[in-house]
């Protein structure tokens, strides 16, 4: 197909959108709302993921040893990012400091140093912690392992639930958008039935006949996506500003770090769904011999 013909057909697609203003507007609103919900959920998911990862990265595994002395196999365990050996004296010093006590007060009160030597481990991936704890507990040198077990499990479960729910929501919303585009296109096709019959009679190829509808759906997806992105960016800027002021300890993703990916993913998603929705909408009417 020639470039000039392609441009003509894009114009025809845009013209169709304008000609059926009523149904176009209804479809535009529906798709924009669906994309807004999708975008809102995606942003929430990104931030919850960020928050949970932040929390998980701060989790420490504390391994108490049966007797003083370093244990090579603990230091060489796979998945450990950083380790620190804490002997009994250092442990006592840490406690004294954290409770802001003076000198040997604690040693005098307790009549010596009852603390055990231990390892403080920082793990690369929080998801490895449960397995690592199991391995550590199996070592004869290890007396006890303490970690935020409940917290880790809860955070990992939260991530899984949000991920699963997100996928389900993504599927439902994509299906809804495709249905809206397909129905709009079906209507447009029905209105232009006479023109299509004439084009077919005049020897138009199936691609020539169907192209304006594909462009119509794609443009609808693009316009809706751009609108949804503008609303989301503006809302996120306002919301993140408010969060930064009210809850400064919450590690919210910055708008700058999300802007480009929001634009690219949003537009690509809108265009692809518009295109697929229009194919779905006109597939029954695809010109046959």
């Amino acid at each position, binding site marked *: *197909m*020639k470039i*000039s*013909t392609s441009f*003509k057909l894009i114009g025809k697609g845009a013209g169709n959108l304008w*000609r059926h203003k009523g149904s176009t507007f209804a479809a535009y609103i529906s798709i924009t709302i669906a994309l807004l919900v999708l975008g809102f959920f995606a942003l929430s998911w990104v931030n919850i993921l960020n928050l949970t990862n932040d929390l998980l990265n701060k989790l420490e595994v504390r391994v108490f040893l049966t007797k003083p002395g370093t244990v090579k196999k603990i230091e060489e365990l796979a998945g450990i990012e950083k380790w620190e050996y804490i002997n009994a004296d250092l442990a006592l010093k840490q406690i004294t400091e954290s409770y802001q006590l003076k000198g040997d007060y604690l040693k005098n009160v307790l009549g010596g140093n009852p603390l055990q030597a231990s390892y403080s481990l920082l793990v690369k991936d929080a998801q490895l912690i449960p397995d690592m704890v199991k391995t550590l507990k199996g070592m004869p040198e290890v007396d006890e392992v303490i970690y935020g077990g409940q917290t880790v499990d809860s955070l990992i479960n939260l991530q899984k639930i949000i991920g699963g729910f997100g996928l389900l929501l993504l599927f439902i919303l994509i299906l809804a958008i495709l249905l809206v585009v397909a129905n709009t296109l079906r209507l447009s096709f029905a209105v232009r039935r*006479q*023109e299509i019959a*004439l*084009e077919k*009679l*005049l*020897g*138009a*190829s199936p691609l*020539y006949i169907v192209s304006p509808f594909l462009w119509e759906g794609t443009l609808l997806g693009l316009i809706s996506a751009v609108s949804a992105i503008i609303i989301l960016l503006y809302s996120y800027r306002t919301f993140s500003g408010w969060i930064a002021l009210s809850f400064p300890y919450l590690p919210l993703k910055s708008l700058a770090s999300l802007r480009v990916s929001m634009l690219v993913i949003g537009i690509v998603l809108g265009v692809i769904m518009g295109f697929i929705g229009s194919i779905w909408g006109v597939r029954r009417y695809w010109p046959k*011999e």
Partner: protein
Amino acid sequence: MAQMPLVYFSGVSKAFDDNVILKNVELAVPKASFAFLLGATGAGKSTLLKMIAGEIKPTKGKIYIKGQDISKWSKAKRASWRRRIGYVFQEDRLLSYHSVYENVALPLEIQEFSPRKIKDKVLSILEVLGVGSKAYSLPEELSGGEKQRVSLARALVANPEIIIADEPTAQLDPYTSKEIFNLLASLNRTGRITVIMATHEWDLVRNTDLPAFILRDGFLLPWEGKI
């Protein structure tokens, strides 16, 4: 050796379920000829014309275009043949939301002519058919005769090999009807374009010496001036 007909029907029959429309039709339309196709409403005239365009397949028999069996053609080749046909219908079939210019440009756009060529050809054919001043009007702003002229312009703009006119004068007054017929006849004479015109206006046919066929009870017979 006799010239190969442009369109040739060999023993063509067509039935829609149990309703037999055409029975064993034999028809040869030579290149650059003019033929009337007569018959009452529902006699099968439109079906026969659609078969020439490859829109409807015969139940039995073969249709040859320039000696080639149309049933063996690919979709693309059939579409290419349709681009060589100019259609004029009983109702104008102009697209109401497009201007006269856009309506006439449609066959050229389908054939991917350049925008400049489309403009030249459309404006010149509209001028020739006396509707040049209406190029940017909408069809609803035209009279019946003007609409049919625009329809004819659309049929002619891409230099067709054959014009299929399906009762083009049915909705026109006798004067305009005669005018449209004269236009078709002159295109046939001077432009060497083959014309097949379906009509049930017996008087129009009676006043010419052009060959005519009549469809009666599914059979195609030469018309000898009797209804």
